[in-house]
């Protein structure tokens, strides 16, 4: 295996070939991961920009920054871009693409050219979405509810719908690639029960991507057809049922939230184990709970429709099922906590994000249970309570998981270490900013402030001001890593194969890895998370 220093002669995936063609026509999963990293970061900041505009408008009770119609477009674009062009791809397309082959001891994914096609589909969808935005945006809410989206909205629903349709195929192909790879390309000795939990998480995520996204695809097609050809399947004027749209839409979009959170849970498992120097407690339970979340996640969708007009009996069924889906998530939280117990804990940046994840995801998850109760949901649905709930999971959970993963694997990906103290500072800023932004929203929602409203009664102003203040702090917390990650590429400390002393095959090759990942394919004879056999690293960043 290659030793520490990045010498000019040692070939890595970064210096194997230069030039834009070698990047745009690459089939190397690691380069494709970086292509995704650049693109989703771009969309993250666009979505974040819309969020800031929303928060700015909500500083005052009156609608004084933008017009009402513009405000509708702001929250729609924020949602669509963040969900479809940032969160859904984020961890799988960046960290998953980079690490799945490495973690199982393979040279690349099973279908490298399909992987590249995936990225191009994402870019095509993204470009069409940008076009829709520039041409005036969409104002239907990210949920495209009919009949507004099909019959009444005057905005670019068709373009946005098609953009998401195309990006959906990117997601499907990524999932397909991962399933085939994990089944077919594990190194000798890498049995299913020795797989890192990151892999189990991505496998479960891929199942959802494969089986859920097509339903969104057909739903968007039907919306586009109804809007352009006036087909009339969702049109109440013809006896069509607007709720049918919601059933079909949420059949995908609820499992979609598990696409967003499962990979983050996978990251958290890896990070927690490393910075407690212990194996994950209850490996089997955590692995099976990933699959459990994926499957049960498909049968709870109508909890988004409790007050929309579904029958009471259906609502009862979906309410009970929604309680069921919390069980595997809770199993994970308990197992992670047990992992920490009597571990040798160190508070490196990835660990700070992972610990933050556990706390914030738990709050988000528990408030989800509140929402699953019909009696409470009737009161707080379509209020800021719901917004706070899902942001706790998606930002406090998924994004923090993504940040943990980026920091943890950054030295592997680039061969450089980011500045640790800046990393910890940014993590802290994110944590504080996040809670200041979203905790007041639970209270606002409970007090009755509706979501998607551009004006509000004056008594809600203080909490809104707190929330906006928090959002600016959060923005700083996200900008800092942009800066120091870029800085580290040139000035960061050069690292060896395994700066964290972590378990996992990806740490047994050089940083950055060679193009085909391993000089020789390893043969695995040890269990996952064999921290009893790995010495604590000597480098100073774990002080």
């Amino acid at each position: 295996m290659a030793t520490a220093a990045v010498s000019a002669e040692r070939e890595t995936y970064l210096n194997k070939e230069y030039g834009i063609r070698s990047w745009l026509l690459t089939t190397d999963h690691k380069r494709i991961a970086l292509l995704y990293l650049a693109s989703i970061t771009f969309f993250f900041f666009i979505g974040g920009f819309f969020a800031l505009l929303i928060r700015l408008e909500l500083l005052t009770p009156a609608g004084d920054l933008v017009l009402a119609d513009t405000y509708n477009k702001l929250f729609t674009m924020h949602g669509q871009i963040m969900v479809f062009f940032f969160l859904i791809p984020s961890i799988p397309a960046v960290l998953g693409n980079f690490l799945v082959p490495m973690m199982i001891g393979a040279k690349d994914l099973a279908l490298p050219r399909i992987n590249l096609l995936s990225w191009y589909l994402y870019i095509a969808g993204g470009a069409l979405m940008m076009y829709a935005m520039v041409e005036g945006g969409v104002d239907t809410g990210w949920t495209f509810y009919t009949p507004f989206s099909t019959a009444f909205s005057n905005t670019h629903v068709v373009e946005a719908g098609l953009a998401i349709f195309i990006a959906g195929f990117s997601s499907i192909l990524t999932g397909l690639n991962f399933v085939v790879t994990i089944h077919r390309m594990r190194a000798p000795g890498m049995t299913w029960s020795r797989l890192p939990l990151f892999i189990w998480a991505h496998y479960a995520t891929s199942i959802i991507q494969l089986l859920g996204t097509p339903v969104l695809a057909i739903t968007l097609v039907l919306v586009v057809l109804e809007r352009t050809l006036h087909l009339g399947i969702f049109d109440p004027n013809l006896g069509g049922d607007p709720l049918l749209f919601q059933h079909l839409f949420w059949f995908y979009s609820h499992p979609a939230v598990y696409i967003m959170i499962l990979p983050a849970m996978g990251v958290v498992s890896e990070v927690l184990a490393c910075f407690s120097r212990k194996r994950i407690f209850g490996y089997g339970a955590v692995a099976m709970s990933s699959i459990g979340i994926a499957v049960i996640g498909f049968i709870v969708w109508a909890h988004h429709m409790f007050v929309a007009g579904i029958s009471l009996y259906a609502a009862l069924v979906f309410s009970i099922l929604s309680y069921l889906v919390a069980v595997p998530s809770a199993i994970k939280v308990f197992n992670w906590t047990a992992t920490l117990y009597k571990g040798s804990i160190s508070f490196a940046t990835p660990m700070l994000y992972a610990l933050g994840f556990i706390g914030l995801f738990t709050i988000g998850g528990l408030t989800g249970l509140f929402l699953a109760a019909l009696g409470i949901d009737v009161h707080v649905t379509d209020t800021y309570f719901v917004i706070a709930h899902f942001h706790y999971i998606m930002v406090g959970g998924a994004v923090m998981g993504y940040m943990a993963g980026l920091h943890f694997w950054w030295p592997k990906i680039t061969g450089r270490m980011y500045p640790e103290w800046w990393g910890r500072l940014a993590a802290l800023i994110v944590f504080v900013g996040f809670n200041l932004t979203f905790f007041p929203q639970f209270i606002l929602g409970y007090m009755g402030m509706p979501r998607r409203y551009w004006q509000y009664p004056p008594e809600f102003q203080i909490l809104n001001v707190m929330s906006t203040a928090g959002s600016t702090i959060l923005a700083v917390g996200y900008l800092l890593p942009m800066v120091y990650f870029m800085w580290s590429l040139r000035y960061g400390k050069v690292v060896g194969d395994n700066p964290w002393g972590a378990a996992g095959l990806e740490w047994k090759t050089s940083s950055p890895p060679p193009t085909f990942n391993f000089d020789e394919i390893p043969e695995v004879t040890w269990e996952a998370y064999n921290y009893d056999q790995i010495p604590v690293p000597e480098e100073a960043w774990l002080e």
Partner: protein
Amino acid sequence: MWLFLATEVMFFGGMFCAYLIYRFWYYPEFAAGSRSLNIYLGTVNTVVLIGSSLTVALGVRAAQMGKRKLLVILLILTLILGLAFLGVKAVEWHDKYVEHHIPGASFSVADLVREYPQLHIDQRHAEIFFSLYFAMTGMHALHMVVGVGLFIYLTIKAWKGTYGPQYYTPVELGGLYWHFVDIIWIYLFPLLYLIDRKPLK
């Protein structure tokens, strides 16, 4: 390919879900709409498509056995049958156009209302049947077109001798796709054409 076909099951599944719900709600209109479809052309199309599945399956076998000429002939036959299917479909759609059964501005099922007074047809609900009819057969036809393109590619490659017992994966994968599109039609046929053909009292 099987994983991709699983995604296609869910893709068409969304439309089957819509169909199921509206058939439950608007059975009389669905029955009337179904009767207005030409059962003979539908049956012919089913026969044609199943025949093309046979030629595809025999083609894969020919590739397995290294019989290049036979493979090419079978692939061309598949193409011919596939195009025949699309041709019949076009005829059926034209009929629908003439009868004003295409949803949109000139939609009218006055003819069905007259023909089946006992069903008390609501024109708007009938429009939903036809919307689903065109959406489902349209999506199916689109998949057929993609299949035709795929098979043109396979035929050319087969002609050049690319496939043999050592390597016939693309033929097999193309075959799986084609069979899947056939299976979708096997369900569409009874669901759209055979809802209620009982002799009326």
